[in-house]
């Protein structure tokens, strides 16, 4: 009689465990969010030497990394928003390039021209 109780107890516990596992939701397979580079905009597109302007990149995707480059002038900051400063002698059309890459190493690039006058 004692052993019957033990066996029935084990069966109940096993059924409970099975029920608990069966209630657990299955996670959907991970899908990479596609890299989309929406826009690259500057607060001011025309500045005087010695002035600065903020440049913002808008994009979506997984684990985005932003790379910034200028043909002349300095870029300060990092991420999707940086500050561009134009020292004297950078008069003219200065091109700012923003490249965005995601965790799958996809990459997109946009350029913007800041007129220094």
């Amino acid at each position, binding site marked *: 009689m004692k052993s019957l109780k033990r066996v029935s107890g084990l069966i109940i516990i096993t059924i409970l465990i099975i029920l608990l596992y069966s209630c657990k939701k299955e996670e959907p397979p991970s899908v990479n969010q596609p890299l989309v580079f929406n826009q690259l905009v500057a607060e001011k597109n025309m500045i005087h030497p010695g002035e600065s302007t903020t440049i913002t990149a808008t994009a979506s995707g997984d684990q985005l990394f932003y790379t*910034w480059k200028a043909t002349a002038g300095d870029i300060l900051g990092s991420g999707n928003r940086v500050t561009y*400063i134009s020292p004297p002698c950078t008069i003219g059309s200065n091109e700012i390039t923003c490249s965005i890459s995601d965790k799958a190493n996809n990459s997109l690039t946009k350029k913007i021209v800041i007129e220094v006058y």
Partner: protein
Amino acid sequence: MILRIIYIPLIFFSISLQLKSQCFTSPGNPIAGTANIGTVGKKLLRGNLFYRYSFSDQYFEQDKKTDFIYYDKALYNYMGTMIAYGLSNRITLEAEAGYFINKTIFYDERLPYTLPEYEKTGYGFTHAVTSLKYLLYHDDINRLKWSLGAGSKIPLRLKLQYSNGAILPVDVQPSAMAWGIVLQSFLLKENSLKALRYFMINRYEYNFTNNQDFKWGQALYTSLFISKHLHFRYEWLTENWTAIMQVRHEYRVHNLNYNLEDHIVNGSGGHLLLLVPQLNYTIREKWNISLLAEIPVYKYYNEVQLANKFALTFNIAGDIVLNDNQ
């Protein structure tokens, strides 16, 4: 009494008006030192290792100070090496290279806007120069020597340096990333009786356009040295010391940036006149330890540039004779 004249390393650097499109000299790039004079003897290996600190914190417009606001200050710590080997008694093969431990600019906090950061630092290898020197003329009676050298400048880095994804300002990029040509002349006159030496070094540099469409201006450096072996009454104290005074003129023409509309970087190039006192200590006639300060005494910069205030250099040099039976 004829005093012996031993090899003394002459430290010839360029503070360099090197800049890119920024109108500023910033800390500049040292052109690694020619730490000897002319050629070395056959199978003689001469090595130099130096450390250099440079500091700048004042803008100049032509030859006058200006209150221009952009960088607050700029500095660098630099290590360099030079090796010379005597292929024959007339021909010497020389190689020099350098590394920036750091090259830092500090933006002025008086700028009328807030910056996300006020300090930028670059580091890394600059360039190498390999050259051949030829002893063109020597007159042992009158103690006169004239050597000529020609070499190539080889960039040790061809990619721009980034920090947190943003390109570093050109003033802290460690390398000019340009190939070039270096021509040098060394003239030496000795006076053994007075333990004096006179030197004149000329160096001309031509840089090709780099992969960023930038071309550094041609540069011409002229250095006059006089060295005096300190041989006073207290011989035990002074016999290993040599005092050297260098007067150097640097001239650099405008840089060209083909990304700019008119290509000419107006705020680049100029004239610089420096006094460079140097003190040298010789160990067993083989090793030399030198300390020198570079003090600009006259500056003329095209437009506005951040001028170098001073630089300090510490140099160790040594000779090794490579015999056939070694």
